[in-house]
């Protein structure tokens, strides 16, 4: 489903999340891991934003900072105009009805001592919605929506397969009728044949309820299948943001180019593959200037001195690179 309107559901403005690093007996502060380092992004109603990056680029931290599971260091997160970073405890409880998360590993995110029905019911109890009877009905309804059988409500997580566990995770997220779901690598722990089932389910519920997704993934083919717009992250920063078609057909940032060309595919590549040198540098001590310059195949003299800002090169296509200034 296409985004319903241009109405902005969530606006992230210059968000930063630093983790202090300490050393020695007195826990001297010796630096920061800049997991999220100045991210600006907005999500429209009913829109699927794909957030792509390699491990350690800060994509999961960004996902956790939005519903304030992690306290942001600075910056603003506006949900329907309210700044999440300034909400008190009660405000947060209300907010978390609207923003839900689906985690990567369903084994770790479900309580092994709680049966499926109780797990799905838990958010309803926390938010004091309905009485026992209506909750039971709601759980049955949710289970049906995610393709589980109602009689499976009494089973415990270990009795389900990976795909089914992820369905429980989705049912839990849907329980509060949220308007935004943050899905952090929802299918990367699943087998290929099961991945497709879960992706289809996520598309179905998105269409049915007009949800917005922030879909965090490292698998570009998943992103290409699902997303409307795509943001590429590298070492805490968004380096390129564009709508899906534009980004996949006309990638501008050298990192995006390399990322796209690195994906193994059925068809032999017509162009040579861009093989990146080295690894992602440590976010504790990122390279000067543009963080990508030591691995970049189109590096300019300016790149190690000055950090490029995010600029709009064509409508809706943002890029942070000295090549396009």
């Amino acid at each position, binding site marked *: 489903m296409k985004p319903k309107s241009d109405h902005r559901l969530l606006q992230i403005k210059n968000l930063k999340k630093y983790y202090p690093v300490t050393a020695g007996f007195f826990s001297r502060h010796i630096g920061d891991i800049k997991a999220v380092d100045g991210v600006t992004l907005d999500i429209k109603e009913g829109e699927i934003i794909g957030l792509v990056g390699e491990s350690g680029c800060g994509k999961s931290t960004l996902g956790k900072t939005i519903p304030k599971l992690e306290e942001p260091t600075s910056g603003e997160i506006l949900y329907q105009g309210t700044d999440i970073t300034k909400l008190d405890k009660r405000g947060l409880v209300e907010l978390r009805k609207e923003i839900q998360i689906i985690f990567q590993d369903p084994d770790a995110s479900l309580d092994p001592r709680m049966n499926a029905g109780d797990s799905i019911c838990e958010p309803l109890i926390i938010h004091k919605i309905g009485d026992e009877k209506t909750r039971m009905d709601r759980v049955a309804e949710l289970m049906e929506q995610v393709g589980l059988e109602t009689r499976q409500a009494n089973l415990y997580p270990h009795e389900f397969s990976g795909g089914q566990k992820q369905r429980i995770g989705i049912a839990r997220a849907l329980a509060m009728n949220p308007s935004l779901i943050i899905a952090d690598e929802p299918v990367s722990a699943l087998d*290929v*044949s099961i991945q*497709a089932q879960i*992706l289809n389910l996520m598309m179905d519920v998105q269409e049915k309820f007009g949800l917005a997704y922030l879909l965090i993934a490292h698998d570009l*083919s998943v992103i*290409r299948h699902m997303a409307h717009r795509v943001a590429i992250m590298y070492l805490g920063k968004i380096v390129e943001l564009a709508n899906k078609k534009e980004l*996949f057909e006309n990638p501008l940032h050298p990192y995006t180019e390399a990322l796209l060309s690195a994906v*193994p*595919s059925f068809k032999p590549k017509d162009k040579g593959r861009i093989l990146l040198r080295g690894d992602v540098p440590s976010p504790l001590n990122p390279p000067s200037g543009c963080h990508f310059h030591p691995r970049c195949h189109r590096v300019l003299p300016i790149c190690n001195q000055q950090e490029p800002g995010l600029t709009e090169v064509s409508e809706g296509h943002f890029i942070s690179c000295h090549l396009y200034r």
Partner: protein
Amino acid sequence: MNNAILKVNDLKTYFFTSRGIVKAVDGVDFELRRGECLCLVGESGCGKTVTALSILRLFDSPPGKIVCGKISYDGLNLTRCSSKQIRQIRGKDIAMVFQEAQSALNPVLTIGDQIIEQIKLHLPLDHSMARDRAITLLSEMGIPSAERVMSYYPHQLSGGMKQRVLIAMSLSCDPQILIADEPTTAVDVTIKAQILDIFRELKARRQMSTLFITHDLAVVAEIGDRAAVMYGGKDVETAPVSEIIENPKHPYTSGLIECLPDTSKSTGRLASIPGATPNPIQMPQGCAFHPRCPKVMKICRRQEPPETTISKEHKVSCHLYT
């Protein structure tokens, strides 16, 4: 075929657990030819890793046991070898690269010590010669300042680097066969591309015979010569990689290919295979795939399909073709 360097015939490896017999590998047949890259493809629990472990007898016994079958290498039947014999083959003639580089390396020994240990075990070299050999191998794997890396501990290296060290280690005694178990699964895309490049190079330069285990069909398309698709402990389809991708015969193979989100066409629903992989303690009767198969017939529920030859190089086990 006489250019087969490794032949596996009707291999069955069962695990005898308190909850029942897990038939992890239940009749696998394939041959690895000299200088080729054969991919074993399948989802988790299909028996691809246990097949590899059976070749080198690297599983715990008990509970695991090779109950029947033959693994022929160099005139030897590896299933009959004594553990002393197999120890001499392991790492020297047949080497293995494991999935998780982190757990495959010893955290309290330096990289150098770990590689040198293996070289000295199998080759008549003294310490400094072994050391030189290790450094050469590391730099061949594209590790910058290999001499310094020799004194590093595993935690000082990134995931991609550790994987390179493991590959270097596996090559240290010039093995005839390399078994790689999902070497690209735990790493990022850009690192994955680098590792695949190394394997491609190994094939081109050393004519290495590689048994490559993966669940990722796109990786298979990139580096494989032939592929064997496994399901429920059996190989269900074996063919050259281009055949597998363009002309899959087994409904499971075509299902696997269709359910991949394709980067070139991006609309509509994904095809999916209903249900989940079967419980290895209670495999379905007849063809193990029948409860999930879109083309299931009556006979599939009763009888196991025999292997049918589609063409000289293309074999499939499915009642549709008998």
